[in-house]
Each structure stands twice: as structure tokens, then as C-alpha cells.
């Protein structure tokens, strides 16, 4: 480890484990430079976020563009309790199924809106991954995550292009 390790809280919202596996794979891939703390959003006490400075949300999408059912109460708690997240920067990786064109990967957008409403600042664009087209979400997320880390480390070097991995279903 040549440089100081970045402490990152990874918040996972998952239906069938895909988002959790992606978080674990990113941890394995970047463990040299990042100290990962993986936490399921369904088990998060939202007030604890006030003490955090950097978080990555990895969320799947359920139903008609919703967050996973198990994490829905946490999303509601964020909206109701409105913790002061003025010192929190965050990134979002949103997983979806391109079969559902109208609501593709909207799960992550819900977290984005709720966190922003609490005063947190999103860094980088939301990464949307189509799990129907991408064999391994890690391949799609690795490059984005590397750029996101660089942007977080250097506030001047923010990437701007909207990003979608796995191409367009049509």
C-alpha cells in the first residue's frame, strides 16, 4: 500500500444478491487503496449517515423502477427523518433489467434524490448497469469506480458524461 487508504461506506440494496456480490467484488478489486465497509441498506439506521463523509450506494431496481422492497423502509426513513448529510459525498451504481425499458435501473435514482434532499453531494454520474446484457456487473463497474475514486480524491477532476454500461436494449 503506497498511499493512504480511503475509507468508504458501501450501502447495498439488493433483491437477489447481485448488488451485494458487486460490492464484494469491488472490495476484492480495490482493497489496496480503499477500506470498504459494506452495509445492507435494509439494516441501516439513517441517523448514522450524519457521521459519514463518503458513501457508495449499490442498488438494484424492483417492480416499476422502485428500490428493493426490503430497503423501502430505509428510503422512507431518509425522507421522513431528513438527517443532516451536509458533509456526505456519495456515488451511485444502479442495477436494472433492460426488459423493463420504461423504468430501467431507476432504483438508484430514488437513493440519489433522497440523499440529495438531505444535503449530501453526489460525485460523478449515476452508473446504470443492464444486468440482462452484462455478463458480469464488475466488468462494467470497475472502470467507472476507478474514475469515481479519482474524482473523489480530486474535486477538480469530475467526470461529466452520463454513463450506461451494457449498451441500449433498443
Amino acid at each position, binding site marked *: 500500500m503506497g498511499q493512504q487508504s480511503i475509507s468508504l461506506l458501501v450501502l447495498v440494496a439488493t*433483491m*437477489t444478491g447481485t448488488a451485494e456480490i458487486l460490492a464484494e467484488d469491488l472490495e476484492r478489486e480495490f482493497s489496496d487503496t480503499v477500506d470498504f465497509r459494506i452495509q445492507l441498506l435494509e439494516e441501516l439506521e439513517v441517523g448514522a449517515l450524519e457521521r459519514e463523509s463518503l458513501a457508495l450506494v449499490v442498488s438494484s431496481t424492483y417492480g416499476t423502477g422502485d428500490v428493493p422492497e426490503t430497503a423501502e423502509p430505509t428510503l422512507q426513513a431518509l425522507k421522513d427523518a431528513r438527517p443532516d448529510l451536509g458533509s456526505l459525498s456519495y456515488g451511485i451504481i444502479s442495477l436494472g*433489467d433492460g*426488459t*423493463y425499458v420504461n423504468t430501467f435501473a431507476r432504483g438508484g435514482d430514488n437513493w440519489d434524490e433522497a440523499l440529495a434532499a438531505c444535503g449530501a453531494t453526489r460525485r460523478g454520474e449515476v452508473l446504470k448497469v443492464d444486468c440482462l446484457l452484462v455478463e458480469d456487473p464488475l466488468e462494467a463497474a470497475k472502470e467507472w469506480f476507478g474514475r469515481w475514486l479519482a474524482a473523489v480524491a480530486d474535486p477538480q477532476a469530475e467526470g461529466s458524461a452520463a454513463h450506461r454500461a451494457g449498451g441500449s436494449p433498443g
Partner: protein
Amino acid sequence: MIARVAVVGSGPAGLFLADALSRSKEPVAVDVLERLPFPFGLIRYGVAPDHQGTKAVTRNLARVMERPRVRFFGGLAVGEAITLETLRDLYDAVVVAAGAAGARRLEFPGSESPLCVTGFDLARWVNGHPDYEGFRLPDGIGTVAILGHGNVALDVARLFVKQPDALAASDAAEEFVEWRRRSAVECVTLCGRGTPESARFSQEMLEELRDLPGVELLRDEPGEGASSPGAPGAAGIIARLPEAPRSTASLPVRLLFGAKPLRFEQGRLTVDRQGEVISVPAGLVVQAVGQVGTAIAALASDATGPLATDGGEVLGWPGVFVAGWAAGAATGTIPDSRSQARVLAPRVLEAAERAAGAAGDRADLADWLRARGHKTTSWEDWLAIDRLELTSGAAIGACRRKMRSLEQARSAGAG
């Protein structure tokens, strides 16, 4: 001593339980026993073949099987090659997650006809289940009546009206795709007892059916108490559907509410809709009204409904737990099975660790099988079959071509 747990069944309930168990801080050995040589149960044989996004959960479950101390024994039928009692001797805890025994069936005159089938059977045939090699539907049925207003009914309707070319690109059984090419379907009616509000359709699956090219989804509601177009979810979508087709060229799929089947004869299903007798064209009737029972006969009882358990542990069977549809209440989605596994796993572990502390050395299943000359498939065997299915699918423009048997897999070059 490391606690040893047997999980019977490799569908979502079994493998999410293996996931939750193998994530525990205390080391635990988990053996997954599957009746078929191939894993994944409902995901491989119950989820519609054109829903590959849903089937992609197999990638997550495959990761579980790669963990140390997790083993796969395919082609091992509990109740036949090995009894539940023997498993109790070999393991500190046993979890039965072998699915439901079969489809729930409504009985009415004509329901015993070979042209009255179940969505359970149809899904397995369409998915190339080894038990359904002899299953056939006659050509030229023309019209289909589906009983049930849930997502399985929507799957069945979609499989009958979707373009055969679109199905051919999936991993649907070739016999089914060929049958669809030969047998034009002119009209489909989904009959449910309830109202749009009580229907169990998910919104996204209803929209998927509505938006299929060449299909017009129609509603047929009793005049009184019709649903409100502003209602949330599926009920609102139903309320906004037309009642009559806009084009004669399209294939009508009609949602009929408040309808109870009376009899099935000569291509017509007669239903009672709140006192009014209606005749629905039905060359084929498909019952999609749920599943019942437990696939493992030793646990089956005459009583309908869920098995009696104490926190998932079957009464009268200490150390034996049930999960998923095998628990007798055959409802719940794939994500539900993950949530339920996270609740059940600590209880199973606690029981297994208690039993492991009290028990002496137990024989290993692999040795037990070897001593009796039973051959099973390992996870490595499955991975070879998996690769073979993908490459032979690609050769015919399908995402996968399923093997029906080990013999077929071997002659095609696996193992």
C-alpha cells in the same frame, strides 16, 4: 467440530439458504442435494424462458456453490436413493427446500380432460424439464382460457401470444417453439374470480403483456363497481384498458373478472360471472391457481396449507427444517426466498451446532454414496454441462439449449 447441514433442493429457497449459511462467521459445511442432475429448480424450470433477466440470479447462486465447504450432489433423490431418516443420521441439521408437490387444481366437469392442463406443467414443459419429455399439446387448439389472475397466468398468456421467433432466441424447449410455429392462437382469455383490485398481477408484467407487438389486452368487467382509471398499480392499468379490440388484425387477450368455471366441453369453457352464464372459447384450458404440498413425500400430510413448524423446524422431525414452497404455503417470489433464508439460517445453524456438539463422528455423504455405488453429479460436472448448453444454444440462435439427461450431456461431449 464443524457443523454439517444438508439442504435438499437447489432452487432459490435451497441455494439462498446455502448462501446465508455459508456466510456465517462460524464455519459450517453445507451439502446441497438435488433430485435432478442439474441445479436451480424453479429458476431453470419455472421462470418463463423469455425472462432471462430473472434467470440471471443463477450467476449469484453459482457463486455460493463455489465457496469452500459447499458441495453439490446432483441426481440424488431424497426419498428414493436416500431417505430423510438417513440424512438425519449423516447431518447435524437438514433443510428441505425441494419445492411444491404439484399444481393446485380446480375441479369441475371437464377439468379431467387432457386439454385441461396446469401452468405448473406448462412452465416445466416449456423450460425443457426432464420429467416432461413426453408432454405434448395437440396442434391447432386455436383458443386458450387461463384460470387465475396472477403472474403465472400472465406468463402462460405471454408464451401463447409472443412471436415464436422471439421465443426461439430464449432457452425455451425446441418442441414448444415448434409447436407454437405450427399452432396459431387466435384468442386468449384470463378468467379470475376476483376484481381488478384483488388480482395478483404485477404491474410490470401486465404492461409487458399489454405492450407485446400484435397483441391487444382487453378488460371484461361486470358493469357494477368497475375499477378506477386513477387506481395505483395493476388495477389502474386494467381500468385504462379498452373493452373492445381497436384492430381486427390484432390478437385479443381478454381479462375476465368475477368468473367461476362451471364446465369445460367441446372447445368452450362455461363460466358463472355473478349469476350470468358466459361461454369462453377454449381449445385448451390452463389452470394457474397456485401450487400445493411438499415435494418430499415423508413430510407430506393430508392437511392442506402450511406444514406445522416451530420457527421453520418441522414438528415431529427434530433437526429438520423446511424452506420455500416445500413449507406447504406455495407462495412467495425469488427475492422473498432470499429474505426468508436470512431469517431461517441462524436458527438452522444454532440447531446444527448444538447437534454437532452432542453427536460423535458422522459418516460423510460422499462415502455413504460410494459404498452403495450411487453416482451423483458434482458442481464441476454441472459447470461442464453449463458450458455445453451455452455453446450448443449459440449454434441454433438460442441463449441456451438445455440438456434433458446426463446421457444426452455425455453424448454431446460433457463429462
